[in-house]
């Protein structure tokens, strides 16, 4: 089919485009775009735009109850909540905590295992991809059990070494790191795979040449591999910054409900809390707008940085 079509000698002459097709040609990209665009507009942008509007009202979504215009009151209420600021700073902790797990460690593993024999390397990669395919709800339930201070395997192991059981999910100082760890557990295989792919795409002749020149392993990594992996590193960093806190949502929801003492709450959980469990559409819409604009600004800055510092190797 394709192979055959491509292998045929291509005619060299240019085909004149009939002019009556011009209209269609203008329309063509829009037609191709339509299914995706319409879906995204209906299911994402329309509710989002509606949220902008509703964020200035007090309403509980019921047709029977009045919508009351309250101006900036919902925003003021949210900014006045100590919980909001706690959630905001926790979001930062999530992002910073996830960066090593989603970027640094996978990068290290990818480079480190590159020289392992192909067969064992593939086995390892297959295994560390495993957490990715386990449903978050299932993963959360299993981990809660494993981490239980009374009858969890992890604490059994810890007490084998003579330490007191760690209250992974109950200690306000530890809980957020537990959630970060679980989120990272789910991501590490995926990131490693992406880095491995990028790493494998580096032209080996470059490495060989450097080796000929007497470069050490570390020098090769620093001067050749890392610069060539830069766009992948930037991409995963960007994803982690923008979506890291979102990825941890399931675990927060199932395991801690934002507690203890709000230690594990983040901006997405707050949004859920306002919107779903309290059903106050004004609050949740205002929170959504704050969140969208906030992350949008971060994304904008990061993209600018990325444009400046990345280069594409193909």
């Amino acid at each position, binding site marked *: 089919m394709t192979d055959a079509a491509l292998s045929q000698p291509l005619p060299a002459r240019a085909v004149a485009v009939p002019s009556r097709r011009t209209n269609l040609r203008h329309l063509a990209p829009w037609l191709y775009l339509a299914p995706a665009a319409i879906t995204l507009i209906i299911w994402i942008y329309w509710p989002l735009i509606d949220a902008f509007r509703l964020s200035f009202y007090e309403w509980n979504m019921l047709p029977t109850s009045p919508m009351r215009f309250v101006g900036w009151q919902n925003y003021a209420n949210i900014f006045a909540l100590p919980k909001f600021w706690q959630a905001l700073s926790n979001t930062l902790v999530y992002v910073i905590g996830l960066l090593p797990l989603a970027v640094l460690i996978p990068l290290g593993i990818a480079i480190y295992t590159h020289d392992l024999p192909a067969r064992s390397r593939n086995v390892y990669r297959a295994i560390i991809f495993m957490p990715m*395919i386990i449903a978050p709800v299932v993963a959360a339930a299993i981990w809660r059990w494993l981490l239980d201070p009374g009858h969890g395997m992890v604490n059994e192991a810890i007490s084998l070494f003579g330490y007191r059981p760690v209250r992974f999910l109950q200690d306000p100082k530890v809980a957020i790191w537990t959630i970060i760890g679980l989120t990272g557990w789910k991501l590490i295989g995926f990131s490693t795979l992406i880095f491995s792919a990028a790493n494998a795409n580096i032209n080996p002749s470059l490495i060989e040449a450097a080796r000929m020149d007497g470069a050490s392993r570390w020098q090769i990594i620093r001067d050749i591999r890392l610069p060539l992996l830069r766009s992948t590193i930037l991409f995963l960093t960007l994803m982690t910054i923008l979506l890291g806190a979102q990825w941890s949502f*399931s675990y927060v929801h199932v395991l801690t409900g934002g507690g203890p003492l709000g230690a594990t709450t983040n901006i997405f959980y707050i949004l859920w809390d306002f919107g779903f469990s309290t059903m106050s559409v004004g609050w949740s819409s205002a929170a959504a707008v704050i969140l969208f604009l906030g992350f949008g600004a971060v994304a904008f800055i990061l993209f600018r940085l990325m444009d400046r510092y990345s280069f594409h190797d193909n």
Partner: protein
Amino acid sequence: MTTDALYAPARSHVAPRNRARGKAGIRWNTAAGHVVMVVLSIICLFPVYWMIVSSFRPANAIFETTLWPSAASLDNYVHALKAIPIGTMLLNTFLVSAIVTVVQLFTGLLAAYAFARWRFPFDKAIYTLIALTWLVPFQVVMIPNYRLVADLGLLDSLAALILPHFAGALAVLMLAQAMRSFPTEVIEAARMDGAKSWRILWEVMAPNLRGTIASLAILLFISTWNEYFWPLLLSRTPESSVVQIGIQMFITSEGTAWGPLMAASTLASLPILLIYVVLQRQVIQSFMKSGIR
């Protein structure tokens, strides 16, 4: 093959397998690499192992902390199968995941093609807007979308689970990236040949994007299979719901039924686990080949 031929300069290198490993340092490094990877593998595998093993523990030994159960029983499975219609739920989940995957790939290919093939007004802005949907948390759109689904009379139907996923940013962006690195000469050549844009997409581009499409399909299937919050909001009866909701039914504020929960979780993970084990090599390969950027 076409793909390899086209991508030859960047991708033809197969890591030399038996490079001289005479130096002791390298051997030591390899050993350390194995140690690191084995530890990591255990961390990744253990919870899965624990889920499966615990699903066979009898009720009175459920909190046993032995690695291997002292006694095995199928009671948990019997209980789980009786408590929820897991067969129907698995079928629903499979249907939803398969349809979402296919449709999203389809709409993604079309949209990506539009970006790769033409320059048109606002193309950059639209591309950015599609990328930005990633930043819209589902918590925001959930309730409005619920009302829409209800208005359409689709509550309690699988269509409600599928419709909002007819397109996704990930598919569009990933495919657009892949198409961008597709040599324009080939497209030009096909066009010269008189091929219409529709045929170029399906007969020239799509087959060459097999790697990307495969890895994307896997990602989409897994993430739809594991989706929880949207189905939770929509679920009215277990018979019309997906398996993640069934699992959640074993966790209640009146206590968690650990044994049946683990049994149901195992059953829910099994299909996808099997697909993964069978296709594992291809999955990894397609990821390695396409490389998500």
